[in-house]
């Protein structure tokens, strides 16, 4: 072994070891055992595709996928609308611009578990009180029906992550040449025209980035789900990530849960690869 390759391997060995032991090996190991009756320690027989066939027929799992898809689509739209809106506000020459950036981003620093608990209080107690004051029956019992639980999760996630998406849009907005906007202003373009013809086309790439980013973030949500609704009522607000944890550690069906985890991986991978593909295509266009 030459001197050159010796240092190369020494520099790489800590991360190579960690990645192999923590990610690569468990991934392969789990994939193999998803075809068996593995109980987390040993497997006595291979059952082939049995788990995979069963999970597609399990109502609870399919419901969790459907719920997650619905949740992700609504959240992605709202997050991008709010993210771009907030970014447009704070990048104008307003006095409170920096303060507002700090405020809008703040929820991202606090874990989803804690935020979910705070919002549980708001949906149950604050909404209840405000409903009483305004005489609105519909404000009562939030999180106790599947619909309000769904919207509760959407509101929590949008509030939490809009600041993060805002940061992405800000990065693109600040790259728009100032003279381009000034020239348009001198030519008499209205604010709406400037947005439609200059700003929007130039931040469109940010939309691609943030759309798939939010999609994969939304798809993997667990903490917020656990602390806000805990999947209830009757598992109607249980997302895929939580469904897998439950199957594994509450029901103790390790091989079956692992099969669900493999399907989960495939969905997340397709979303992420589509994102890479679109971004690459965009780079070629430029």
């Amino acid at each position, binding site marked *: 072994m030459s001197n050159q390759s010796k240092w190369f391997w020494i520099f790489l060995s800590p991360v190579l070891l960690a990645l192999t032991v923590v990610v690569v090996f468990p991934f392969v190991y789990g994939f193999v055992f998803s075809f068996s009756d593995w109980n987390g320690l040993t497997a006595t027989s291979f059952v082939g595709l049995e788990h995979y066939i069963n999970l597609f027929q399990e109502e609870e799992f399919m419901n969790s996928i459907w719920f997650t898809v619905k949740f992700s689509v609504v959240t992605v739209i709202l997050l991008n609308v709010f993210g771009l809106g907030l970014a447009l506000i704070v990048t104008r020459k307003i006095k409170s611009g920096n303060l507002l950036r700090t405020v809008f981003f703040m929820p*991202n620093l606090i874990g989803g578990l804690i935020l979910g608990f705070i919002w549980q209080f708001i949906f149950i107690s604050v909404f209840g009180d405000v409903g009483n004051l305004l005489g609105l029956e519909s404000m009562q019992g939030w999180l106790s029906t599947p619909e309000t639980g769904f919207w509760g999760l959407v509101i929590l996630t949008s509030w939490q992550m809009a600041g993060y998406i805002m940061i992405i849009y800000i990065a693109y907005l600040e790259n728009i040449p100032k003279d381009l906007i000034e020239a348009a202003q001198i030519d008499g373009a209205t604010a709406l025209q400037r947005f439609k013809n200059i700003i929007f086309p130039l931040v469109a790439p940010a939309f691609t980035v943030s759309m798939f980013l939010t999609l994969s973030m939304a798809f993997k949500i667990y903490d917020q789900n656990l602390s806000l609704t805990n999947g209830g009522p009757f598992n109607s607000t249980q997302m895929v990530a939580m469904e897998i944890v439950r199957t594994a550690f509450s029901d103790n069906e390790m091989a079956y849960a692992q099969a669900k985890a493999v399907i989960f991986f495939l969905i997340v991978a397709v979303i992420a690869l589509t994102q890479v593909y679109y971004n690459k295509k965009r780079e070629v266009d430029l």
Partner: protein
Amino acid sequence: MKRNKEKRNLFSIEVLGLVLGLIWIAPFYLMIVNALKTKKQIFTGVLGLPDSVALGNFVQAFVDLEFLKSLFNSVLITGVSVAVIILFSAMAGYALARNKSKLSGGLFFVFVAAMLIPFQSVMIPLVSIFGQVDMLNAAGLIFMYLGFGCSLSIFLYHGAMTSIPKSLDEAAIIDGANRFQLFWYIIFPLLKPISVTVGILNVIWIWNDYLLPSLVLNEANATIPLKMFFFFGEYTKQWHLALAGLTLAIIPVIIFYFFAQKQILKGVSEGAVK
């Protein structure tokens, strides 16, 4: 006249921003205000200010959360994990960027591809394997964070290396430095801006992580989010205590944000756009 109109526009945008800002911090306001009320006061109304300040809530939450102990556990686990991630990912990013072989490119691809794997897909075997070798403890957890955190970090370091000229390496080698000296005294200090970014991204994630610690740690050495979960379960329907606990749990993050907000916003922006 046009100037005036522009000014008025700007003013209405500022007002809109401030209103949204107030909505954004309202949950925190409601949390703190009600954490200062007695159980009875919360029952009679959550919107108003407290009649008298019930600091006892905080005392009880502080004791029941074993706050100093969970804070210590969180600081220790996050601190060591992030330090290890920064050092080893920087080394790997440097090695991969300077070695232009096919193998090196392949390894870089593996590290990046690993980002595709969601935690739930490796969670069950991971816990099983670490359980069998008796490593479901803080040390095992730190090692796991290195495994999960190194991909993005190596990716960022690898990108940053392109702006450090190779002639620096050559000059140092001619002057008699070995690779370790070269890395430690010349390259690593030059990577400081990206180290700040890598550090911030990993601190945010590891500090707030709940699921992995819940599978690895027991209650005696719980981090803040994990302890908060147990605490909250104990005080369902006793909002005055639950909210005081949540407020306590958030304080360290707010202090961190207060001192490092510029670097945090910059770091997140760099990490997100790349």
